[in-house]
């Protein structure tokens, strides 16, 4: 049965979404900081290393480069542009890589939980087990920082039909598992409230890496995408996510292309450089009531016309 998690709503019909300071676009920058297991124990639906019997040291070392080398270049680049990132984080990184965790904390980065390991998918995981994974992540962040987890992004983009309900139940405000909009949007859940904040599977270096895209083309994509949402943002606010992986864009042949693309966006006024939690909070406080009223009225109108 179709879960019917959201109301269909054309973006052009919605009330105007205003960002702080009248910004046209909320830009959030998301390095994915991850650990891929050397010899994964759980193989849920997808084989993380399909190239050969495990271990696959080409895959493992490629990812490891991000934590040893790439992430440090990326931190420096974000410092140069004064960008406070939202890290899509495998939460075991907090425990296994204390140097990385300290560097993120020193920069007051926001965390979007990306599960425990990037090789531990939620595919086919039973409801109680998934609840336990989410609870473990909430606890891990509380123990490390004292803060409540605000955002959820399934590990390696893996999900179950229960995920939104379990995420809301854990007191998490927003999720990024839905790629259907340029604005946040409410998701129906059994109990409590949940909204999506747009992440990207387009402006996403790991997706492009599966094809022949290199730095030159990816920087072009970032700039072109920004130009479009910046123009549209004059009508109503948009969100632009820049999804990155230090193992890819912390590479010496790519980081200057990223630098160039970020400098281009930095050259514009009316951009709100935000974190995931800031976007979710602003949206919930200043826009969600108006949107809900709009959806109720437009729903009633649709029924009257029928």
């Amino acid at each position, binding site marked *: 049965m179709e879960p019917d998690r959201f109301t269909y709503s054309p973006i052009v019909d919605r009330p105007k979404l205003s960002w702080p300071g009248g910004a046209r676009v909320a830009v959030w920058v998301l390095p994915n900081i991850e650990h891929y297991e050397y*010899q994964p124990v759980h193989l849920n639906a997808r084989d993380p290393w399909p190239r050969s019997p495990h271990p696959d040291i*080409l895959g493992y*070392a490629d990812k490891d480069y991000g*934590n*040893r080398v790439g992430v440090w*270049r990326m931190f420096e680049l974000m410092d140069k542009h004064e960008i406070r990132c939202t890290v899509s984080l495998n939460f075991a990184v907090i425990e296994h*890589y204390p140097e990385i965790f300290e560097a993120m904390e020193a920069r007051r980065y926001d965390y979007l939980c990306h599960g425990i390991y990037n090789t531990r998918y939620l595919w086919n995981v039973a409801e109680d087990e998934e609840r336990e994974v989410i609870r*473990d992540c909430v606890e891990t962040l509380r123990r490390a920082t004292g803060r409540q987890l605000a955002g959820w992004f399934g590990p390696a983009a893996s999900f179950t039909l229960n995920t939104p309900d379990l995420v809301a139940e854990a007191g998490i405000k927003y999720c990024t598992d839905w790629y259907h909009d340029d604005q946040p949007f409410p998701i129906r859940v059994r109990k409590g409230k949940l909204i999506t904040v747009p992440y990207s599977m387009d402006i996403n270096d790991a997706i492009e890496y599966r094809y022949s895209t290199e730095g*030159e083309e990816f920087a072009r994509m970032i700039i072109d995408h920004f130009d479009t949402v910046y123009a549209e943002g004059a009508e109503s606010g948009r969100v632009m996510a820049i999804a990155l992986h230090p193992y890819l864009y912390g590479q010496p042949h790519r980081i*200057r292309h990223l630098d160039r693309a970020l400098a281009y966006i930095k050259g514009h006024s009316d951009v709100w450089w935000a974190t995931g939690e800031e976007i979710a909070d602003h949206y919930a406080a200043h826009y969600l009531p108006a949107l809900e009223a709009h959806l109720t009225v437009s729903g009633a109108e649709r029924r009257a016309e029928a």
Partner: protein
Amino acid sequence: MSEAKPPQTARYRQGAGYDHAHFEFSALPRRQPVPWPDGARVAFCVYLYLEYLELDPPKGTVRDPRYGGALGSYFPDYLNYSHREYGNRVGVFRVLDAFDRHGIKATVAANAMLAERYPALIEACRERGFEIAAHGTAASRMITSRMSEAEERATIAHAIEAVEAAAGARPAGWFGQDFSESARTPRLLAEAGLSYVADWPNDDQPYAMNVGKPLIAMPNQAQWDDTQQMAVRRVSPPRWRDVVIEAFDYLHQEASASGSVFTLGVHPWLLGQAHRIRYLDEALARTSQYGEVWQAAAGEVADWYRKRTTAA
């Protein structure tokens, strides 16, 4: 009935560290600097792969499935077999010409069947003063956990002996086929007396492996290796050339106290094609314009690193 698995929340260990014991985690900004000779900013190693691919590999061997090519690989695969053979008959001579033009001293990864069947190619490399490293049995045989320890040990020993017989010198280095290892490979390589391994594309600097004996992990930057870019991801040759130059330039400007290594993986069956060779030539022409570069064999770089990082 399947064996019980740990819960989804189980960590592979408590606290800091990796999920294997081959080497320690090391964050780039927290390292002790290791300067190169004469203040060079970059050690530049060219890895030339000389490989024999079997037409009829033994049952149970594993070949990297990403190299099936546009039409797939079925038995007997004359297409892929002869495409690789083109590299050994034609392509390699274009590659060697380009190396000669730019004065490149390469490190050769030669597999056992190549060394046994085409000693003339090993000789052409020896004449040029290239270092010859061991590289498994054949391009059709990855080292994987499917091998028994005895088989893996025999594979390593055979690869070393075949190179020694053809080159007249015992190899110091190891290149696994397609970056392949089992979980015991680093230990077996150290036990076989090798002094460096170039299987782990996780760093721009060498590091020591924890295998009881001195074994250095040499960088092998798969990100711009010719096959990873142009055969697997189908990046265009001119774009590959740009990527190589950009990576080289970045590492050269980044290096200050501690030098990086820039490695260039070259496969004659790919870059030796008539339509690609000019991009290798152009990449080498650009990289040779830089000063403060130590163009060296992998074994020289590994030795330098070992001598400066292990206590006297």
